[in-house]
């Protein structure tokens, strides 16, 4: 990994720092938060920033800093799980489809196209209303929506690998499709998969927050970035940090992912800007 990362530029380093910083804060949140993020205190409601409450308190007297620190746990967890599953499944299927080709390719790609043609948010809303808004449901929903996109991208990359010598050689040795895909094709598209991972993650975390914002994600009183914005945005002028805090954290994480995938793309020669859309 180290060798791959050299030459990715300072932006890449900043990106990694932002990501790791957010992940670390989220992991340590239960220990480093000054207060219980859901404990209300009527005597301390709507206070401005102070030594006791660095970002102030919200209308129930909950500490905004503690809520912001804890607010990433849900989003990051879902983002990590959903992106990992979607990219893993998409990469495997994409390679398999590229390798097998023929009618299998046609059928899978038709379904992929069909899913891609439904607006992401509609597909998500439908899945969430079918199964409720539990964490695994949201993970599943994101996987359903994003796996096809990954399949499409990885398939494109894998097709150029397919005709390379060692794949043909493995085929000639009589190896089965599974091992060929895993051992020969997948490692050769790993750069594309890596860039895809960082980029998907940036969209997934924004999408999760949007879902929470629309009332389909995390449930109150749980601390969650999107939910905090939804709860406090009308009171932006009275408790600015209850909205700005979670947005700053969320944006820094997304910026980190963008910078990282840019840097990776530059280093690995995968053109990230080619992928243009949420």
């Amino acid at each position, binding site marked *: 990994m180290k060798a791959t990362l050299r030459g990715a530029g300072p932006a890449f380093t900043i990106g990694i720092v932002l990501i790791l910083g957010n992940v670390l804060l989220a992991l340590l949140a239960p220990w480093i938060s000054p207060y219980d993020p859901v*404990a209300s*205190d009527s005597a301390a409601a*709507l206070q401005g920033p102070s030594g006791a409450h660095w970002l102030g308190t919200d209308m129930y007297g909950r500490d905004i800093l503690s809520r912001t620190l804890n607010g990433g746990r849900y989003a990051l967890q879902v983002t990590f799980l959903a992106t990992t599953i979607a990219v893993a499944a998409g990469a495997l299927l994409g390679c398999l489809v590229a390798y097998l080709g023929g009618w299998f390719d046609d059928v899978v790609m038709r379904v992929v196209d069909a899913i891609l043609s439904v607006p992401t948010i509609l597909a998500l809303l439908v899945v969430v209303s079918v199964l409720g808004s539990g964490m695994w449901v949201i993970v599943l929903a994101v996987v359903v929506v994003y796996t096809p996109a990954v399949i499409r991208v990885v398939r494109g990359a894998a097709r150029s690998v397919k005709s390379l010598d060692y794949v043909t050689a493995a085929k000639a040795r009589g190896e089965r499709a599974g091992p060929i895909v895993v051992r020969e094709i997948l490692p050769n598209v790993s750069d594309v998969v890596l860039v895809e991972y960082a980029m998907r993650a940036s969209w997934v975390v924004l999408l999760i927050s949007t879902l929470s914002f629309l009332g389909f994600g995390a449930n109150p*009183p749980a601390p969650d970035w999107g939910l905090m914005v939804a709860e406090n945005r*009308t009171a*932006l*002028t*009275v408790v600015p940090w209850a909205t700005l805090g979670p947005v700053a954290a969320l944006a820094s994480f997304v910026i980190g992912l963008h910078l990282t995938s840019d840097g990776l793309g530059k280093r690995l020669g995968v053109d990230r800007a080619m992928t243009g859309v949420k």
Partner: protein
Amino acid sequence: MPISSSMGRRSVLVAGMTLGAGALIAGLSGCGSSNGVADIPLAAATGNAARGRRMRIARPAASAAETLDPASSLSAYEYLGAIYNRLVKLDQQGTTVPDLASEWSSTPDGKTWTFKLRRGVRFHDGRVLTAGDVVYTLGHILDPATGSPQAGVLAPILEPSGVTASDSHTVVFALTSPNAEFPSLLTAYQCYIIPAGSAAAIGRTGIGTGPFRLSSYTPAGRGSVEAFADHFAGPPALDGIDFYSVQDTSARVNALLAGQIDLISQTNLDFATARVVASSPVATVARAKDAQWYTIPMLATSKEFSDPLVRQAMKLAYNPKDIVATALQGNGSPGWDNPVPPGYADALDYTRPYDPEQARALLKQAGVEGLRMPIYTSSYDSVFTPLAVAYAEAVKQAGINLTVTSASSDSYYTEIWMKKPLSVSYWFTGRPVDQLLNQVFRSGSSYNESAWSNAAFDQLLVDARREMNDERRRGIYQDAQRLIIEDGADMTPMFGDRLVGLSRKVVNYSEFGFEFDYLKIGLS
């Protein structure tokens, strides 16, 4: 590239950013800063309304199936009080007072009630109100095809054939069983009087006798009403009202702050938003005192709460004053588990003890020391979650361990309420005492959210209806309240003020129960 053009572009950019930042600062400071937020006013502004003004009211977008038929369960609440009248209405003390009926009386056994109608009342289409319209309206409410929620209240004591017109302005109700509180049952907002023969069309025409007549209406959309010059109590202060549907609460508040509307209806502002609104130069907050009646039903049929000792412990374990302080930031009154609002003439003046140690002992006695269970909430109302959190926090002292569990708000009333052992809920106040106790606490009533069943309590309700002496009847209702406090399964931690956002120009706003005072409300 020439320096000047680069500078030019840069300064345009800088100018643009300055404008944006300036506007944002204006926005922030225009609403007051975190240090100087205004307190929430205690009363709405009063004063002289200017002539010739129209008010703009934003309401939550209802279902597209909503209708102006007052008897329906999907009636468009904001319009009803503007365009219709009832025979009788409820005042702030819970007393039945005249509306279309000028006087009423009953036979000594309380079985036959005679209502005299006000003379010279006209419908918006010019027809004169007669007893026939009242007979027709009651028939429409009692018709099973209408599916009116009030039919469940009236049908057990009244058959359609029991309502007759003895002359053009006298209606006689022959009840199937005595009911001293019958007039109060006609104060429900399903009982607005519609013209005879109008049931099929009333959902769209909205022809009534109210201070405003309908000029346009789209279900879940826009609509307008105009002052009705021939209204029996004189024309209203406003020339007209425009109603708008805005689904999102924040969007309604923003519309108010931006001066696009004058009042937000059916929206209980949360405390932080209320302070934003109160600090705005164009808008302020009025309160409808004790308008929301919050409850924590303990399902009496569940294994946890079938034991009255456990129910009693759940009550003794918390102090309603603390709940009001935390969940409502003081904007309400403690309920002490009595569902009858403190302002009502029939309310029982009794503060039950607060004793967490006794609660702990009772739980031990019941064999469930250290009770652990979820308490369900949702974002259906802005106070639900604070209430659940505050209650869970309060009962910790008695060793009760509740996990606040949030459920989806759109299925809360179908999947959680009356299904899970412990949840939070609310009702609008403004029900007559008889209806309140019968609907929410009598065994087997479809609104009995705690499924509590107490034969002695049910008997008290029957006795009260037979008792024609007002003083003695009040005593029976107060005995019934005491039973609810001591044995009941539905806790009433508090009554919350509804914080209503309105323009600083609005004068004489007053809302009670299910109705605005549309006659006096105006703009300065």
